[in-house]
């Protein structure tokens, strides 16, 4: 029995004292962001450069915009990088966040099966295209997770006065990457942000059918959690990240980020 | 002074009165054979003396010190040592079993090894030292149980049907053990059916009939 206790103690010490992969860093900045920024690889490219400068570590939690803002509202993260302007403005107005800045933009696109049964290819009006899909009930996959993309899609349906439901409309409740994969498998239409689409293009096999409508503009913003509301949030870290990402250096890096030779995000900080 | 003096012992199981003993003494250096039909209460009596079961009434004087309850008597272990019928051996090796009680009494490691070896030689199980106990025959198990008890030098040894496994070597061992206990001025009480045991010389016969004990 004594031997067992000795082994137990040794194992306990070994696992607690041997470091986790990254040594516990006192200065951790928790960033909640969307799956579209995370899955494109932008943050893997961008953040190490920031971390080197600030001698801190950024922990990235990738969820939908809705959840990211909720995490900030509950004080479980320090800063958010999201893309749903109305929600962002409401968030700041309610006092949950401060220091909102534009960071970058890309745009949304409609993708779908190559044979395009709804005949939306080459169109210039996103609402017209969505109406064609709904009227003929062609398969459509929705994010369904209150993300920025999801909110944009719901905005289109609302503008059309259509409530999408039925066997043709799948609400996946998952991130952009997953939804792209699902759409590829189902050969369905879906609304995607360009950045994630480009990263996944080879795996998904669905062409872009409609783009360029000004209503498909997709701006990203960064917001820090309000330190008045959560004094023990890492506001300094959030501010450092915000300042860096809107600085000339951060903005240039965003513009330089390419996948397959294509730029995914356009820097837009003022 | 007797080693153990028992007075007014009563034990019932539900409605049935199992034991009703007015007075019973065990003397140092003596050996006792407890006989009686099946279900007559032999095991119960031994277990009460070992503190494993509680009697309704009864006082016990061990070496002149008074003990009233089963919990009290249990604290006398292993000075008072009870061995089950169909003895129970721990799921380790023979040597580890014999060593068990020694470890508890704080004997040093080297001393323990010596004592255990001597005991295994006495019981004739030295060749089985590292064998796991579930692989032993009935007789071998019994001999290990006796060795495990003997190494602790109990003053009062309570054996419940020790020769029930019909191993001649085990029976010889028990007889030898009784002899040695007598010589050491210790006491052994054996519950038994075995004719060869009951024919043994020099032992006091205690017969349980009804709920009373008859001494001869």
């Amino acid at each position: 029995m004594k031997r067992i206790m000795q082994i137990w103690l040794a194992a306990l010490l070994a696992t607690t004292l041997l470091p986790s992969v990254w040594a516990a860093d006192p200065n951790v900045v928790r960033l909640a962001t969307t799956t579209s920024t995370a899955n494109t690889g932008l943050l893997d490219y961008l953040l190490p450069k920031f971390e080197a400068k600030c001698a801190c570590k950024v922990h990235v939690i990738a969820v939908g915009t809705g959840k990211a803002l909720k995490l900030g509202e509950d004080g479980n993260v320090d800063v958010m990088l999201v893309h749903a302007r109305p929600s962002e403005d409401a968030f700041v107005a309610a006092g949950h966040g401060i220091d909102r800045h534009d960071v970058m933009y890309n745009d949304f696109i409609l993708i779908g099966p190559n044979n395009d049964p709804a005949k939306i290819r080459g169109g210039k009006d996103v609402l017209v295209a969505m109406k064609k899909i709904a009227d003929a009930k062609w398969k459509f996959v929705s994010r369904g997770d209150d993300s920025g993309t999801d909110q944009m899609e719901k905005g289109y349906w609302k503008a059309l006065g259509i409530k999408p439901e039925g066997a043709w409309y799948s609400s996946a409740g998952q991130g952009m990457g997953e939804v792209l994969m699902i759409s590829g498998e189902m050969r369905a239409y879906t609304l995607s942000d360009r950045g994630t689409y480009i990263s996944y293009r080879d795996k998904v096999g669905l062409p872009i059918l409609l783009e360029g409508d000004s209503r498909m503009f997709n701006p990203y913003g960064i917001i820090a959690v309000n330190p008045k509301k959560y004094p023990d949030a890492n506001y300094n870290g959030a501010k450092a990240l915000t300042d860096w990402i809107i600085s000339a250096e951060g903005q240039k890096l965003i513009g330089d980020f390419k996948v397959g030779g294509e730029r995914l995000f356009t820097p837009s900080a003022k | 002074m007797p080693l153990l003096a028992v007075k007014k012992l009563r034990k019932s199981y539900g409605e049935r009165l199992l034991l009703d003993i007015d007075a019973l003494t065990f003397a140092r250096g003596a050996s006792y054979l407890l006989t009686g039909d099946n279900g007559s209460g032999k095991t119960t009596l031994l277990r009460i003396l070992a503190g494993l079961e509680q009697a309704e009434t009864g006082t016990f004087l061990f070496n002149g010190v008074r003990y009233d309850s089963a919990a009290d008597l249990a604290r006398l272990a292993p000075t008072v040592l009870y061995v089950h019928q169909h003895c129970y051996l721990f799921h380790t090796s023979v040597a580890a079993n014999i060593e068990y009680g020694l470890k508890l009494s704080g004997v040093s490691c080297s001393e323990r090894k010596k004592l255990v070896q001597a005991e295994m030689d006495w019981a004739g199980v030295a060749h089985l030292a590292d064998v796991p106990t579930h692989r032993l025959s009935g007789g071998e198990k019994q001999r290990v149980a006796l060795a495990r008890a003997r190494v602790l030098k109990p003053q009062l040894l309570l054996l419940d049907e020790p020769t029930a496994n019909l191993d001649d070597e085990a029976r010889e061992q028990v007889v030898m053990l009784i002899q040695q206990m007598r010589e050491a001025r210790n006491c052994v009480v054996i519950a038994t059916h075995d004719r060869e045991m009951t024919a043994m010389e020099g032992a006091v016969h205690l017969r349980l009939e009804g709920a009373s004990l008859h001494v001869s």
Partner: protein
Amino acid sequence: MTLADAARHAFELLLGGDATLWGIIWISLRVSCLAMLVATPFAVVLGFVLATFTFPGRRALIVVLQTMLALPTVVVGLLLYLILSRQGPLGEWHWLFTQEAMVLGQAVLAFPILAAMTLSGVQGVDARAAETARTLGATPLRAALTVLMEARFAVMVAIASGSGRVLSEIGCAMMVGGNIAGVTRNITTAIALETSKGEFAQGIALGTVLVALALAVNFAIAMLQGKGEVR
């Protein structure tokens, strides 16, 4: 990429010592090991107590334990998330999205398995074991430990089962850990992420390691049982 290609790529990643991959594996090992180390003493003691003593509420406690066995990992994850969130009662610990939270979650998941199997193992020990220990001079505590040792076969199987559950669970780790790269991304959450990105090679590599780990644990237990020569 075909399945065969993905499999080949998977082994290249593993054997090439890909740092990210092995970092993920280490996190799984560390978190699950710690969770087991933390949960086992308490669970084994509880299992022993339930098997040995009667007290008011014992029956109810056993029912609760057995119900916990069937709890889905996401439910445990959700409950812990609510508790550890800044809004929750333990928000001040700042444990959400850390390895500590994952360890806690997995300890909660392992606990009922360990306790229930210890309970049944100790119940299976002959009643004479405790008596024999007492008659040889053991104190009640010592006799209890001896009984536990007699049940060690069952306890070892309990540990193997518990390890299996925590190594392979994802629902809880995802919710309270947040799948943060290099911090709370373990094998299972990484598999989920990589497969969602269509990176099947990574998924296969990690899945293979997970199966190998499960085998290793069970093999180690079998070796211990063989050495102890318990039936």
